[in-house]
């Protein structure tokens, strides 16, 4: 008995660091209304889509599976569109592919951006000039324009291909963000200290600089995800991109081309619009909160 209590108190004393850190993060998360509200919005949206898509037959997203242009009713909770697709089924099966575009493009953009930004900011010199000049060029060219040209040649694209095309332009923002932070971190006293203690450049970049960049990397990631979804819906409204798999941009595109607005079919354009607004506002709140966390003095200054 005595022995077990002793070991348990001992483990409590040994463990508090990681435990305290995790509970600290959770407490920060819950205490910051922007962070918890933003995450909550994304979780609710994703939950609605995942749970709903398990219970709803995918066949209902096919053309002609339901009567045409029916307003919401008990049988069709969100009505149907002008070619007989069940809007509820389109929504639950369409939200997560849209998020998938954002996630793939966001992860690719953030990883490439972090590596390039870290290399540019830490090594400086010619490497820095080349990388940041290219990032500047890519930032200047509106990616939507090049995406339009690309997508107009690749008419039948998939969700994954669209995400990869968008990622080609998603790295420049994170590169600039990470580069400027790596530049200032390089001048901090712990870098020469690490050098004196015999760490190599690569080790310093990975073990000293990278952990300090985490909040910026996360903020950059959230920004890339929302930018990628924005771009994908944009090219879909222009009639390009993946218009065969159900996703939010595709529903919005068919509502637009079907003149849903002027036929008073609010249940057709409304649900994808609401889902996108929830998605963008949620991601925006998270990114503001991460910005404030990374940069408490500036209190949510944009970029």
């Amino acid at each position, binding site marked *: 008995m005595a022995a077990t209590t002793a070991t348990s108190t001992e483990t409590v004393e040994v463990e508090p660091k990681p435990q305290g850190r995790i509970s600290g993060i959770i407490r920060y998360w819950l205490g910051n209304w922007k962070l918890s509200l933003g995450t909550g919005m994304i979780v609710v949206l994703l939950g609605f889509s995942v749970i709903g898509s398990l219970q709803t037959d995918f066949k209902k997203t096919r053309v002609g599976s339901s009567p045409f242009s029916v307003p919401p009713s008990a049988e069709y909770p969100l009505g149907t569109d002008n070619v007989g697709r069940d809007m509820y089924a389109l929504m639950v099966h369409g939200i997560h592919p849209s998020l998938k575009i954002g996630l793939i493009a966001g992860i690719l953009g953030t990883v490439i951006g972090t590596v390039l930004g870290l290399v540019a900011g830490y090594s400086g010199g010619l490497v820095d000039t080349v990388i940041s*000049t290219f990032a*500047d*060029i890519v*930032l*200047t*060219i*509106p*990616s*939507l*324009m*090049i995406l*339009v*040209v*690309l997508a*107009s*040649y*690749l008419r039948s694209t998939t969700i994954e291909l669209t995400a990869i095309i968008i990622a080609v332009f998603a790295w420049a923002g994170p590169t600039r963000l990470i580069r400027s932070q790596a530049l200032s971190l390089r001048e901090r006293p712990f870098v020469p200290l690490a050098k004196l203690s015999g760490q190599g450049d690569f080790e310093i970049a990975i073990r000293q600089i990278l952990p300090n960049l985490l909040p910026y990397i996360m903020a950059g990631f959230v920004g890339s995800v*929302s930018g990628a979804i*924005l771009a994908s*819906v*944009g090219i879909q*409204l*222009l*009639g*390009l991109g993946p218009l065969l798999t159900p996703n939010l941009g595709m529903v*919005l595109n068919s509502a*637009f081309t079907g003149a849903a*607005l*002027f036929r*008073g079919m*609010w249940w057709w*354009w409304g649900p994808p*619009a609401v889902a*996108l*607004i929830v998605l*963008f*506002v949620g*991601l*925006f709140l998270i990114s*503001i909160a991460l910005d404030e966390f990374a940069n408490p*003095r*500036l*209190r*949510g*200054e*944009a*970029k």
Partner: protein
Amino acid sequence: MNLQYLLKRVGLFLLTIWVASTLNFLIPRLSPGDPVGAILGAMQAQGATIANSAEIIEAFRARFGLDEPVYVQYVKYLWSLAHLDLGYSIAHFPSTVTDIISNSIPYTLGLLSVTTVLTFVIGIFAGALLVWQATPRAAKTLITIFLMLAPVPYYLLAMILVFFFSFTLGIFPNSGITSPGRIPGEGFDINYFLDIVYHSILPALSIMIAGIGGWVLGMRGMMVTVLGEDYLTLAEAKGLKNRRIFLRYALRNAMLPQFTALAITLGYVVSGSVIVELLFSFPGMGYQLFRAISSNDFPVIQGITFFLVLSIATAILGIDLIYPLLDPRITYNRK
């Protein structure tokens, strides 16, 4: 030092144009399928019967210089771009891409310049007022609502505005640039002009409402920093009027960095307005781009994208060159 800054900026401008035009050149040639095949496909899709297709393909290849080696094509392509010769439209054959662009550019330029300036000015003021202590609570609440609209894309706001103001209330027209069948009178017809303005209000509003929040956010951050500066305390101690401190001391200093942000967001604004034009059938370049996409008119698609990149790069160059004149704290050789 000034010369070095100038050369660097102009160099970046030229590099940007070069990269964008090279992408425009490479994408069609790297993608599966032949541009000529795409042209014939487009003609067939429009119901043309193609009897002697082999000859037509040869003729097209020669006309577009596709029978020459790639590097010759590339040099010729850059040479004609430098002369703003963007080729012919496929869907509207005799007219050139430059014609289509120059017919639609006044609408886009008018819409974008007015909305960008208004959004910038309103956003800057609103952002500064949000942090300023003397601002009435009601104004702060209103500004916070705009702040929450910052992440909502232009096209969704456009749809919501059309639904309320056009479909439900019927106050504003939902598409086009003039009332149907309206023809301008002799000389400058003020009513015709006002009709255009009336049709532009909803597209302009959707761009502005979506844009203001972003400026509020950036300005808020800068104002917080400026409000902590010593010169503001001094200005207060001198007994200056609140209004004067706000305008001349706080706002003036906090707004300067926003000009660089203007350069960064310009591409985003243009991309967004392209889709807003499409939603409102507003006959600017975005709408032409959509029409070109639906009719597989590749020269027009590439011409418009090239032109938009060119205008954005020019605007950014302009802002970059003017900015150091506005803010003496920034020396030309820094950054």
